[in-house]
């Protein structure tokens, strides 16, 4: 097989060898070049975000609600609170169900057919556009009842489930079998062994997995468009439309007012800092391994 892959030039003369070296260098240059080209937009986005965001960020951003058009100042305090409420609802729903699903695949299903199907479906579900989730929750919870914070939180919560299920499963599989056998050998009931031994051992990884899912949905806009809907005022009611940071950024970015553009950049910076911190945390914990010295 391998011999058929080998081109004849390997046995040929010096000019061919020269050509091969040149091609080699060209390919190397292309790979390095594309890496630079890919890193450029990221650096550009970050630099611009830092520059624009930092210069528009002030105390008012965190303490005031949006001002009417034409007035300067104002902030996104209600959006930050709204995002907090939405994410709290989402986490209350997504985290327990997601972790439990992961426990099932790792501890009970293992390599069974059902577990594989759940794993596969979770991966596929991860790729479903978030706007589809928005429509689904709209027809399920919003139609006829009006926009509400609760429906937005549910939409985000459902989106967390597949991600958390998969990361929890991966983390639990890293816990050595010996640990489970030791627990069961002592006569610990299985459910207790799973919760207090296996899950506890894997908890740093599981928690960071949850944070990753949290960071993902924190920036989601599409599922909130027709569920949480957005709000210009303070609102903590679960039955009323509620403001959210990504929604507000979207509205302000498309507005024709410079003052609102400024706030959009500041909002984007706050959102990004939140996400970068959690991603960095995830990498830090994942890099150390779930279990010290064991995995």
């Amino acid at each position, binding site marked *: 097989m391998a011999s058929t892959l080998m081109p004849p030039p390997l046995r040929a003369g010096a000019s061919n060898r020269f050509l091969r070296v040149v091609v080699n260098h060209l*390919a190397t240059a292309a790979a390095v070049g594309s890496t630079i080209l890919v890193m450029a937009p990221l650096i550009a986005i970050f630099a611009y975000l830092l520059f624009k965001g930092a210069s528009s960020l002030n105390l008012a951003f965190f303490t005031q609600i949006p001002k009417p058009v034409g007035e300067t100042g104002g902030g996104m305090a209600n959006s930050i609170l709204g995002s907090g409420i939405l994410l709290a609802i989402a986490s209350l729903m997504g985290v327990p169900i997601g972790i439990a699903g992961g426990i099932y695949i790792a501890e009970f299903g293992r390599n069974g057919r059902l577990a594989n199907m759940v794993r596969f479906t979770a991966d596929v579900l991860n790729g479903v556009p978030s706007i589809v989730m928005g429509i689904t929750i709209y027809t399920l919870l919003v139609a006829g009842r009006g926009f509400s914070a609760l429906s937005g939180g549910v939409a985000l919560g459902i989106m967390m489930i597949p991600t958390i299920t998969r990361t929890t499963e991966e983390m639990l599989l890293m816990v050595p079998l010996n640990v489970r056998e030791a627990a069961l050998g002592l006569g610990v009931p*299985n459910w207790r062994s799973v919760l207090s031994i296996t899950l506890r051992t894997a908890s740093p990884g599981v928690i960071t997995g949850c944070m990753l899912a949290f*960071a993902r949905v924190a920036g989601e806009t599409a599922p909130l468009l027709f569920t949480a809907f957005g709000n210009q005022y303070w609102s903590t009611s679960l039955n009323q439309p509620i403001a959210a940071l990504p929604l507000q950024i979207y509205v302000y970015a498309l507005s024709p007012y410079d003052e609102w553009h400024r706030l959009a950049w500041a909002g984007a910076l706050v959102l990004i800092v939140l996400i970068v911190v959690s991603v960095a945390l995830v990498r830090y914990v994942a890099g150390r391994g779930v279990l010290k010295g064991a995995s």
Partner: protein
Amino acid sequence: MAGQADVNQRPESNGSAGAEPSPSTVRSYLLNCGSSALADRAFSGLMLVCALSIFAIVLLILVELISGSKLTIQKFGLPFFFGSAWDPVNGNFGAMPFIYGTVVSSILALIIAVPLAVGVAIFLTEMCPDWLRGFLAFFTELLAAIPSVVYGLWAVFVLVPLLRQYVDPFLIKTLGWSGIFAGPNYGIGMFAAGVILSVMILPIISSLTREVMSAVPHAQREAVLALGATRWEMIRMGVLRNARIGIVGAVILGLGRALGETMAVTMVIGNRPEIVRSLLAPAYSMASVIANEFSEASDPLYLSALIEIGLALFIVTIIVNALARVLVWAVTRGAPARGT
């Protein structure tokens, strides 16, 4: 299997425990913790229900979308997807302009992103010094975590002016004769959408390609090098050839992302439901028409048309993602976990 056997033995030890004269401290502590076969059964049942919720979500989406789009499915049938009229006032709907916009912008994104992503993956797996690799991998991961709306914000205020001032005039001058890059230069439009989409799907394609390439055994590389191949020949014949199915999977996964991407595209595609040859002209995509018009759609038929577009988007992305997963799994199954 071993785990299940343990579970089945539990009631025995439990029942006999009561008859024992003096259980050890550990044992009596554990017995007081409320162990029973029932609890085990209930616990695994609960976990099973949560795992099954994944299927329930898929089913829920399907049922809700189908029932929500009943009106247009009955009225227009399959020709809904081929009609190009979009007239909410007179109740005449066709999804073709949106399907066209979604497909063309996604393909454009793939054309730009795939060569770059494979280049990055090659650099990271085969050439990169160790100290730089971790850093770059972190950066690409970060790129994947930036929310869509922030990409959109950047695209509106940085990318679009850049395209309008420098890139578009150049394309019109050099490729204007083809008609693909022609007409009034707004900056926003199909091309801008394709570019921002390519930036967004690059990280996912390159990180998956990297994973697939790392799964190629080292012996393969050494064998090709030992035959006198240059590094590029080694990569081409020893690595890319073996990883190609997985790379195709990664590309399809990126396609799935591009098809469903909403916010950033909505902000730059121009939102005009027309099929125009020029890529510089404003267009519309399936996800962005939903994002823009859903909350304004007061008429039931209008709403139903939008939901049907959502249904089509859902089914297409499910198929595309399933295909991609199968391909990636086929290659990386049994390979060591990433990161090491």
